[in-house]
């Protein structure tokens, strides 16, 4: 039906050339993946196509005709629908209001019931069931993405662009998304699918364009490529895939003990229910599970950010009941939170300042005064060691891409030489290169005789790192296995709540 062509597009921000000679041809009816590391310039490209940014140079052609999008309205008008990486939904409004906003049925009165009927109709006809009168703030991430897609469909989308749609989804939700994408493709809607996950690109796309450092470096039919090839184009060097980590070199004493712990969530519902486990020095203890099964509450309770309803948390044999966040840090517990922008960094501070946040003792301060030079020097070392880009200690944290922000947090936490590092989704949304680097640091920490409590929704990540694997479901650990007895099927099944007994019996019956 429609084609999208990009010619020599360029966009510079102060200090960064985000897009530099970007070329792209999306044929009608195809699913075209744009693959690139974090910071490669994918979102910038999309924002130009959607009229949010103005290109410095170059052309955007729809059906062969050069177009200029001064505002998003112009782009919507020619049928470009974008699901942005950070959803553009208004939590306080309803699903229907969000879907039609800006393109309402009529100018004067807001026709609520007609609008809701129209939204229900579209969502039904595309197999994306939604409750039009629900408030967006009450819905899961997967649902919210569905709203974004329905939003595009409501506007009669002719080209659908999805910016990293799977980064925030559970494996199940990703599968559902792919079903929807195939259906849209069958309707003849060309899809631009942005991702940094090789397997996904290979699964869903017909053609792939690889971006690196603001440039499009390759366009290739997916059928003729291998993952290794894609990864190499993406990072510009050879990437080694290691799916089995070197085993732990030596297990030490029990460091963290969680004993019949019960924790409440915001709604005062038991999110963690009488949960018991222990983590020992020299091991990575991986907690797998579908999002929302109590992982967040468990981790926050251990970090001292959330009150304990009942049960005990012990660290090196000592109860933490009366120990605050600061005391836990001092005892050697480090925490890399999930929402790095909100919890992990002060975005308006420099990298040096952020790296110091954790530890303001000497040599970074003397007698209550900061010693800038020492701090800057230490920051420079850490940035280099953790391969943060740019490795400029004076850069503001907010100016970094997500992957690099995550590296900064990890650098800060690892540099404090914790005995126990709690890492929640440490590589969420990161690219191959960054994931590799972060995994290496976690393994190093372990090999130096420390413990890591790794909570991740990415099963592959758990399998790649953990020495022991626990699966959380409904606030409890329902399965705990050593790495060598775990495989993706067993764990995947446990994640849905099937107990080990059920797993074995099913295996027995087949």
């Amino acid at each position: 039906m429609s084609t999208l062509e990009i010619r020599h597009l360029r966009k510079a921000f102060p200090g960064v050339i985000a897009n530099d000679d970007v070329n792209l041809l999306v044929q009608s009816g195809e699913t075209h993946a744009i693959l690139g590391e974090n910071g490669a310039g994918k979102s910038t490209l999309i924002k130009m196509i959607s009229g949010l940014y103005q290109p410095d140079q170059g052309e955007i052609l729809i059906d062969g005709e050069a177009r200029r999008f001064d505002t998003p309205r112009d782009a919507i008008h020619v049928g470009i629908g974008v699901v942005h990486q950070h959803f553009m939904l208004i939590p306080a409004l309803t699903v229907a209001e969000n879907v039609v906003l800006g393109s309402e049925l009529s100018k004067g009165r807001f026709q609520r019931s007609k609008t809701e009927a129209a939204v229900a109709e579209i969502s039904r006809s595309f197999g994306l069931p939604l409750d039009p009168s629900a408030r967006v703030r009450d819905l899961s991430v997967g649902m919210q993405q569905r709203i974004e897609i329905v939003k595009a469909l409501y506007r009669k989308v002719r080209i659908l662009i999805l910016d990293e749609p799977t980064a925030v989804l559970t494996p199940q939700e990703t599968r559902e998304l792919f079903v929807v994408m195939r259906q849209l493709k069958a309707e003849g809607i060309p899809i631009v699918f942005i991702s940094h996950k090789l397997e996904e690109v290979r699964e869903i796309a017909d053609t792939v364009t690889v971006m690196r450092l603001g440039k499009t470096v390759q366009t290739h039919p997916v059928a003729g490529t291998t993952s290794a090839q894609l990864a190499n184009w993406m990072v510009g060097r050879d990437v080694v895939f290691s799916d089995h980590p070197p085993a732990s070199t030596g297990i030490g004493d029990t460091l963290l003990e969680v004993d019949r712990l019960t924790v409440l969530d915001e709604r005062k519902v038991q999110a963690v229910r009488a949960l018991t486990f222990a983590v020992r020095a020299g091991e990575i203890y991986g907690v797998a599970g579908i999002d929302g099964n109590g992982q967040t509450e468990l981790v926050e309770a251990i970090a001292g950010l959330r009150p304990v309803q009942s049960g005990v948390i012990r660290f090196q044999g000592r109860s933490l009941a009366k120990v605050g966040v600061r005391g836990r840090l001092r005892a050697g517990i480090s925490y890399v939170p999930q929402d790095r922008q909100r919890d992990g960094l002060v975005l308006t501070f420099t990298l040096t300042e952020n790296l110091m946040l954790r530890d303001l003792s000497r040599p970074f301060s003397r007698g209550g005064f900061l010693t800038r030079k020492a701090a800057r020097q230490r920051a420079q070392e850490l940035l280099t060691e953790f391969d943060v880009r740019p490795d400029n200690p004076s850069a503001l944290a907010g100016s970094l891409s997500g992957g690099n922000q995550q590296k900064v947090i990890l650098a800060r936490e690892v540099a404090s030489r914790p005995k126990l590092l709690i890492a929640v989704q440490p590589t969420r949304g990161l690219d191959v290169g960054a994931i590799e680097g972060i995994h290496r640091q976690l393994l190093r920490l372990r090999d130096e005789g420390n413990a890591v409590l790794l909570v991740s929704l990415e099963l592959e990540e758990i399998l790649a790192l953990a020495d022991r694997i626990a699966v959380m479901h409904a606030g409890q650990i329902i399965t705990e296995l050593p790495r060598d007895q775990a495989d993706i099927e067993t764990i995947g099944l446990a994640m849905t709540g099937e107990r080990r007994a059920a797993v074995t019996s099913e295996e027995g019956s087949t």
Partner: protein
Amino acid sequence: MSVVGQVFGNPELYASTLAMATPLALPALGGTFSERTGVVNIAMEGNMLVGAFFGVMIAAATHSSWLGLLAGALAGGILSLSLAWAAIRLQADQVVVGMAVNLFAAGITAFLFNTIYGPNGTPPNTPFLPTVTIPGLYQIPFIGPILGQQNVLVYIMLLLVVVSHYVLFHTTLGLRMRAVGEHPEASDTVGINVARLRYLGVFLGGLLAGLGGVFLSIGLLNSFDVGMTDGRGYIALAAMIFGKWTPLGSLGAALLFGFATALSFALQGIGISSNLVAMLPYALTIIALTGLIGRSRPPAADGIPYAPTK
């Protein structure tokens, strides 16, 4: 009858409540429009003050209280555009600019008042906004004296509350205004002109605050005095917050605060300090903000400038 019965059984108390609530409800309504689109409007006080002054001045000059009303409202609206421009175009700190606007309004109205009228004060022949009696309603016992006879601006205020509620929650325009105050970037991506709606919100805020000032000068007190708004703009903001940024809630809070004022007048006769009652609006607002009686949540982008990258 007991003293309590004398105070609370008197329809006068409730009629006066309605009158006292009007100069709070109008700017609270205005603040609701402004903040719903995402601009914190601490300049209500200043907008009221210019409204009060120009209301008197134009009414006196043209011998028409209606032209005075129009002029006062417009003065508030126009002054508020300075806040809008600084907040939206320059992305300045809205609280700082709001304070500056208030200081400017206090200065300019004092200057103009003294220059134009000198020591004589408001011209004695300044026309006032009429008091209206609604025939059928006025005859009803108890209710009649409360609702049946009020200044015309009281009725206009009640009408504006209903209209504002309809506009904000039942029209496409209102939906877009709220969207812009919750998440300007999301609104931008669906083609909504964020700046335009924010200007509109702040301007409506100024108009309504100006009307509130008009009510003070040619509705309630029948004169202009330097600094006559006496913090009502801030109490109106408190009413807006207490009313959860809704027109109906703002009216409710304004009535409550108005009742407190009316009561303090009534109690003065029997020797209870009015200072205690004057504290009520602020105490209630703090309670509302701490969430003791259902949390009051501001629009998500309230006070945050929107700076799109281009």
